[in-house]
Structure formats: structure tokens, C-alpha cells
């Protein structure tokens, strides 16, 4: 039995999970900052 597919699969799955865990806060922060900036711009307009 060749072990290569098991090694490759485990490294691919682990990379995907850890990459997702690392990038999720980056994307969330980008979205939140955009939201906050838009809200501030709206508030500045009304004042």
C-alpha cells in the first residue's frame, strides 16, 4: 500500500484548516472596518 495519498491528504486538510483559521479574522476585520468607516461617513454627512 502506497502511503503517499495519506500523507498528502493529511497535509492538505491540515493546511486548509489552519489557513482558514488564520485568514478568517483578517477578512472579518476588513469587513468590520469598512462597515465602521461607512457609518462614520454617514454620521459626518448628517452633522
Amino acid at each position, binding site marked *: 500500500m502506497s502511503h503517499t495519498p495519506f500523507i498528502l491528504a493529511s497535509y492538505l486538510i*491540515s493546511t486548509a484548516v489552519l489557513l482558514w*483559521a*488564520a485568514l478568517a479574522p483578517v477578512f472579518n476585520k476588513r469587513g468590520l472596518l469598512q462597515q*465602521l468607516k461607512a457609518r462614520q461617513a454617514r454620521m459626518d454627512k448628517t452633522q
Partner: protein
Amino acid sequence: MTTETAIKNKPRKNALVMFIHKMGSPPWFYNFSGKLVPWLWAIFCSLAAWALYLGLFKAPADYLQGESFRIMYLHVPSAWMSMMIYTSMAIMGFIALVWRIRIVEVLAMCSAPVGAAFTLVALASGSLWGRPTWGTYWVWDARLTSELVLLFLYLGVIGLYNAIDEPRKAARAACLLAIVGAVNLPIIHYSVKWWNTLHQGSSIGTSGNSIHPSMLWPLLYMAIAFKLYYGANLLSRARLKLLKQDHRKRWVQDLLAKENQ
């Protein structure tokens, strides 16, 4: 005694105590961690790349398991991390419940998704390692089952925290669950001693290890790299959570104004 001598004689606070006090302030924590995070990511990437190069290309194949042992460089450090993160989450949960320090509360809650990711990696890589060595992806043995319970505990903490609207109330409830769930940690650790399991006992311990140094060093480098990953990821998540919770406060408004300029 004059005011001048009174100031001179006043006991100075320890630098570490001062640092801990400063870390309790969200704007200070946000700025300090912002400087630290890129360094942690850079050192993690370099160390992980070096460890994987040694583990995948330099270490010889195992005489019993052949090439499949190379899964160890992911499986073992992530299993260690899953337990270490839970331990630190429970300790931070205890501190947050007793002393009500908000930053510690935030750090405890931000540890849960990172810990869950490491537990998932440990379970998936272990399952893929099990097929060529044991002939099966999964067995309900004590070590595997208790590690699966750990994943459910992490998911429970995340779920409970997100189920309650008020963030501080939610954190307190989730911290309590994290503390109660810590009972699973000794069960995971001693499961291979207390029960007859398919999973092997630990090869590395305080009384020595049974791994050749050419295989051991990449494993230790990877373990350190994963700790840096945890640090970087935890701080990134904590910064985001503070921004979300404090978005109406002055320091966040100032931060946004500075970014807009």
C-alpha cells in the same frame, strides 16, 4: 516629610506588574499586539518551513511504519496544541470569572476557535495515519474518543458564547463551561495508560524518548512553530473582538479617523 521625599520613597511598581496593568487597557493592548502579530507570523512561517523540510526530506523513513510516520509532524504537535490551548483557555476562564478582567475574557473566548482548528487537524491527520498503520480510519478507543469529546467541548464553548447577546454575560457562561470541560484533559493524557487502546503510548516524556534525534528535532521545531501560530492567531482574533465590542468608544473612533487620513 515633604512631597518630594514622599514621591522618592514611594515603592516603585515591578516592571512586569506595570506591563500586566497596561495590557488590561484595550487601546494599549490593541496597539501592542498589532506590532507583535507580524513578527509572530514571520517566525512561525520560517520555523514551520524549516521543520517541514527536515521532517519531510531529511528524516529517514521509519523502519516499521515506512513513510506514513511523516504525518507525525502535523498530528503530534496539533494534538499537543489542542490540549495546551484548552488548558490555557480554562485558566484564562478562571481568571476572567474571579477577577473580571475583560482582556482575559476576550483572550479565553478567542482561544476556542484556534483550539478547535488544532483538534480537527489532530483528528483528521490521526485518522489518515491510522488507515495505513492500523488498517482503519477510526476506532472508538479511549484516546480517539476523548479527543473527539475535546472537539465537542470547543464547539460547545463557541456555541454558548455566540448564543448569548450580551458579550460579557456570554463570556462568563462560556468560561464556566471551559473550566468544567477541563476534566477531560487528564482523561486524554492518561487514556493510553488507563485503558487498553489501539493508540500507542507517548514516545516523548520526561524520562526520555524513543525517537531518533533526526526525527525528533523537526517535531520539536514544529511544536514551537504551532505555539507561535497560536499566539499570532489569538492576538489577531482578540484585536478584532475588541474593535467589535468597543466600536462606539473614543479610541476606536480615533483609530478610524487616523486610518481615514
